[in-house]
């Protein structure tokens, strides 16, 4: 019955109708788990917002920006490298989206390809960040600029690292038979987490390299 009704629906509604038809209990618990995951993302959002507001406050209350250290004004961050590295991370968001779409359409080979591409791009971004840290020319402890930069980008980098581990586990689970075409909440959560990490970087990129 629900499967017949699902033919008239599109996107997520059709998927929801399909898994409710397969397992009504799963449909209900999925919604609860999704809400819990969204609350987790919101709590993470508050964490980043707190540090971002601290950085904004420090910056607008400083007499000069970049601040002076030992009589010399510190350099601005390198926008061109950061723009390129940002695109690597944003690209990984798109590949993760494709991975989930292919899983929904039961195309496991393409799912694996896009998921591996996402993981590699995530690792590439982390490598770019490591390079950025090594050439940035400021220290964590000497100025508020350095403290804010290393704290925020470090916290974000840690999230990306966790995301790479998370996606690797999801890939192993998906290939091990944990998820099916109608039950794949873990993959949905992983995709949302990865998009969230991408979006946090949009704000950090603007604050440190554009503003």
């Amino acid at each position, binding site marked *: 019955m629900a499967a017949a009704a699902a033919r008239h629906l599109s996107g997520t*509604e059709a998927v929801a109708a399909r898994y409710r038809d397969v397992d009504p209990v799963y449909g209900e618990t999925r919604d609860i788990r999704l809400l819990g995951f969204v609350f987790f*993302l919101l709590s993470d959002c508050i964490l980043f917002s707190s540090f971002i507001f601290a950085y904004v406050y420090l910056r607008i209350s400083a007499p000069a920006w970049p601040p002076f250290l030992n009589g010399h004004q510190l350099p601005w961050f390198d926008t061109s490298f950061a*723009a*390129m590295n940002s695109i690597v991370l*944003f*690209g990984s968001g*798109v590949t993760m989206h494709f991975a989930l779409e292919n899983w929904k359409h039961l195309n496991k080979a393409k799912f694996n390809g896009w998921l591996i591409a996402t993981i590699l791009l995530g690792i590439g971004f982390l490598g770019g960040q490591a390079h950025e840290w090594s050439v940035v020319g400021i220290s964590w402890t000497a100025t508020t600029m350095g403290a804010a930069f290393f704290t925020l980008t470090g916290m974000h980098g840690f999230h990306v690292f966790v995301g790479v581990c998370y996606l690797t586990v999801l890939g192993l689970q998906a290939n091990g038979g944990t998820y099916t075409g109608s039950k794949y909440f873990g993959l*949905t959560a992983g995709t949302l987490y990865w*998009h969230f990490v991408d979006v946090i970087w949009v704000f950090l990129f603007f604050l440190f*390299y554009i503003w």
Partner: protein
Amino acid sequence: MDAAFIERGIALVGAIAVGVTATVQLKNDWTARGLDADLTKVLLGLMALGCVIALLAAVNLLGVRS
């Protein structure tokens, strides 16, 4: 050709490719319903905005320091 020029070139091409793809995905998912679909739409939209910012930075319209 210096490194910054190459980095900006890669950022420009990448921003167009990723931004257009994200926007097309956003359009395709526009009619999808549900909390996860709505959240995905918001996040994809912000990611497309990020691509626009990166593109403007790549062409020196944003992030130019005096």
